[in-house]
């Protein structure tokens, strides 16, 4: 039973024309800050309920509440993984309060690619998860 169209030629992402540009390809293939932290101050995980992209973001803070380290982990598509990689680079060293200022445009610009409406969610998922994590951390601290 084939359960799909049959064929024999091998095409991989390695030799297929890359539609997203160098930055996305580089960060997909060599993601920065991929993994987890031992005792993060902020830890949040969520999913794109449609495509199944699921990402966990972890952040540890310095005493002055700047981002000391950030990690992300997940089974992610090319755009979401590259976005996670770039985002964790962008926030490292910043005051945690600045994370709320990031928006979709910042992530898309960092990706250096045209991202159509259908894939915008892939690009912004890591940011949304990070900001939700920061909000939860802030609420936990004030409780």
């Amino acid at each position: 039973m084939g359960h799909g169209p049959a064929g024999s030629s091998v095409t991989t992402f390695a030799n297929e024309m890359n539609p997203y540009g160098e930055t996305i390809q580089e960060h997909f293939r060599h993601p920065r800050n991929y993994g987890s932290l031992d005792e993060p101050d902020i830890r949040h995980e969520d999913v794109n309920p449609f495509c199944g992209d699921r990402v966990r973001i972890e952040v540890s803070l310095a005493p002055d509440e700047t981002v000391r380290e950030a990690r992300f982990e997940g089974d992610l598509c090319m755009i979401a993984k590259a976005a996670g990689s770039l985002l964790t680079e962008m926030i490292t060293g910043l005051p945690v309060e600045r994370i709320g200022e990031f928006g979709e445009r910042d992530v898309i610009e960092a990706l250096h690619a045209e991202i159509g409406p259908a894939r915008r969610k892939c690009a912004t998922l890591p940011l949304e998860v990070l900001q939700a994590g920061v909000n939860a951390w802030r609420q936990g601290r004030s409780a």
Partner: protein
Amino acid sequence: MSHETFELMDRLRRDGSRAAMATLVRTAGTTPRKEGTKMFVGDGGSIFGSVTIGGCVDARVIEHSGEVLKASSPRLLSLQLGDEEAWEIGLSCGGAVDVLVEPLTEPTVQLYAIARSEWQAGRSVGLATVIAGDEVGAHLLIDADGKVRGSARAELAETLAREVPRMLGSSATSRTMTYGSSDVYIEILRAPATLVVFGAGAVAIPLVAFATALGFQTVVVDGRPRFASRDRFPDAGEIRVGIPSAVAEELKLGRTTPVVLLAHDYKIDLPVLKRALAGDAPYIGLLGSRRRGAAILQMLREDGVPEAQLDRVRVPVGLDLGGETAAEIALSIVAEIVAVMHGRNGAALGGKRP
């Protein structure tokens, strides 16, 4: 003994009648079913299971069951299998079977209940029944640590406490052994295999239902709670919502965990396959066409996964049954898993082609 025994006992409990339990304890020659197969015959006329696949042997067991219940004592029957029919269709002889027929007592039911809970907890056990010699009908349950439950003479219990763990630690199957003056039938109940399904889509639903009916424990993994839900998978033993590759790492996919990847999404297939291939899962099936499968394998190859490991991935997944619906695809997958777990290739027994 298998999960089938427990299901038959459940049906018997619902039936509510006093019953005899018939167990195939020894076979010789060609027999349609293996040692451990059971049939329950209620005194109200109900019949659950069979020790053959029909024919006069079952009929004779049913006949003897009534007498066993009346006498409240076990009886070992030695029966020729299909002799008359074999002669009538020109064959020399069928096989022979020994069937122990015993009244199903409350202590026995309790021992089986313990065996079931051990099995469900993923532990293998042996259930010993004296079928000839001294103490016919005595039952003992022995676990892999040599812990013995039930009552029999101390000497026999001590022997079984040594022997059964050895059998459980090897590939030994259920069999009849002689210890001193007793013939003892030892039923081996292996911890069930756990089918791990990554991707909670349409094919996963019938796959989990079929696997459950076949006695597998099941785990469904998906990142999406809307898909991996109890509503969609009422039979699943476990539903894990999380990062699939992280869950794969936690599950420790080993010799008793066949794995099926149904996500049909490279971002999940690649990391999960990598983790599955690092373990020794007996079956790794990947949903997708040959072309897609070749591309996924090529990516793993480029990532340094050895060729010998890649050969373990079955893609397209399933046997060639020709079906197209979710249930048909699930059937082809579960059939391939059963064949692989039994060391078979899944070809038609008759060897005929359409």
